[in-house]
């Protein structure tokens, strides 16, 4: 407890120092508003964006695309992972290819996706889903394989169907893996949407960040980035909460 208090004190000190440095840089340090806005400027932009409502349509656009992409990518990823685990031959043929694709920066495909699917929601969702697919797939393969051998053999001895085994033994064993992957996938889907919005979009937080950079409105860029961080953190917390309820047998 005393240790936690000391950490709290240390963190408060360093955050305060950082805040002061920021404040000093913008006031006495002579940084222009179009380079580094002061904390008050950013606060003003946040207030205008959130309470004034100018950021709402963009938050909604990015959030909607990220959630759709996340659901699609994770759903397909888990289904594909389950298929690969159930059919060993597929594992032999597909797993090395997917693993190799891990080393490829897949967001490079974003311009191609925009060229195929257009400026709207579809290319954002596709990009987000493509990025969210990989963590889900790999976690599904690793998790479903991590099932207890003795359990699997017991169910086989009772001539349980593969689907029954999947649902009752393999899926619970995979759950911790899947939630860890979901945590990663939340961030990836946001990244996918934002990059897609950088390339071509008419709304969304990525669009705001890019468009405001052309107008040197750095305060609003900061505000949009902060909102994006908050969305990532909120998504992560929601996953953790869900995990707490679903994987109730594994605490801590």
């Amino acid at each position: 407890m005393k240790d936690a208090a000391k950490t709290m004190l240390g963190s408060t000190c360093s955050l305060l120092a950082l805040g002061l440095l920021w404040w000093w840089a913008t006031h006495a340090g002579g940084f222009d508003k179009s380079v580094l806005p002061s904390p008050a400027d950013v606060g003003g932009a946040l207030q205008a964006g959130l309470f004034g409502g100018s950021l709402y349509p963009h938050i909604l656009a990015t959030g909607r695309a990220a959630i759709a992409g996340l659901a699609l990518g994770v759903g397909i990823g888990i289904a594909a992972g389950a298929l690969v685990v159930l059919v060993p031959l597929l594992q032999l043929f597909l797993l090395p290819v997917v693993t190799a694709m891990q080393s490829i920066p897949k967001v490079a495909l974003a311009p191609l996706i925009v060229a195929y699917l257009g400026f709207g929601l579809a290319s954002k969702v596709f990009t987000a889903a493509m990025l969210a697919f990989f963590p889900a797939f790999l976690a599904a393969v690793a998790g479903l394989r991590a099932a207890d051998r003795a359990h699997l053999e017991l169910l086989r001895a009772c001539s349980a169907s593969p689907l029954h085994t999947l649902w009752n033994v393999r899926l619970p064993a995979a759950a911790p893996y899947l939630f860890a992957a979901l945590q990663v996938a939340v961030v990836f889907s946001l990244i996918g949407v934002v990059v897609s919005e950088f390339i071509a979009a008419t709304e969304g937080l990525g669009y705001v960040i890019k468009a405001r950079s052309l107008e040197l409105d750095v305060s609003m860029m900061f505000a949009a980035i902060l909102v994006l961080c908050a969305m990532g953190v909120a998504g992560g917390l929601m996953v953790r909460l869900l995990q707490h309820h679903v994987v109730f047998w594994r605490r801590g």
Partner: protein
Amino acid sequence: MSLAPAGALRVAAPFVTVAALVLAWWLATRVFGTPTMLLPDPATTLQRLAADLGSGELLRDALATVSAAALGYVLGVGLAFALAAAMALSRLAERLLVVPVMAFQSIPKVALAPLIYLWVGFGMQSSVALVALACIYPVFVNSLTGLRAVDANLVDLYRACGAGRWRIFWAVRMPSAAPQLFVGLEISVVFALLAAVVMELVAGERGLGVRIQAASATLDMAGVFGAVALLAVIGIACSALLRAFRRRLVFWQREEPTAVEATA
């Protein structure tokens, strides 16, 4: 079943998959007669790739991307390791830095691309800066975990024999942290290429990202495919290189690290 054919099959299987995909691609262009502008057939793409490679332009772009990624990677890894070492060795540094680092981690780094561009300017230096930012966290968190997981008895033994701080760091902590450190290094390699490409997509002068963006905008799909293929080869080669390094340097670790890590 004997072991040899199974081993051969294991090696051949991914190539069979890739061959099947290319065949499906070729069939799709044949059967549906898609215009080259939308989906060029494999032969056209390959010819185009050969032409782009031959003219040296594609390689020049690849070199720009790779050098920006490499510079940023070295910078980011250095920073991350210094940070992790400071936090592993000093309680004070840990108390001061843990919350700022957590806050930094919650920023999706690629979203900073336009801001970095404003701050650092046009050209390679902005790519280097974004790459460095993107590489920091994976290396930091893995080094910290590794440096902390050191055997306390071994440290005590060294200390009892009169070894100094630095001696203990290099002889005890580093070797014990190395496997975990490499996990971070391997993840960061992909993030480095990713960040370099995103920066080029947002505002670049040259590089594979610029090429992909320009070719997509003019519906030059064969050009896009060629650049993406080269990027894929580079990504796979960089990861393989790092794995080879790990086997050399961390030779006492026999099994592959089991950590499942995904990259964007």
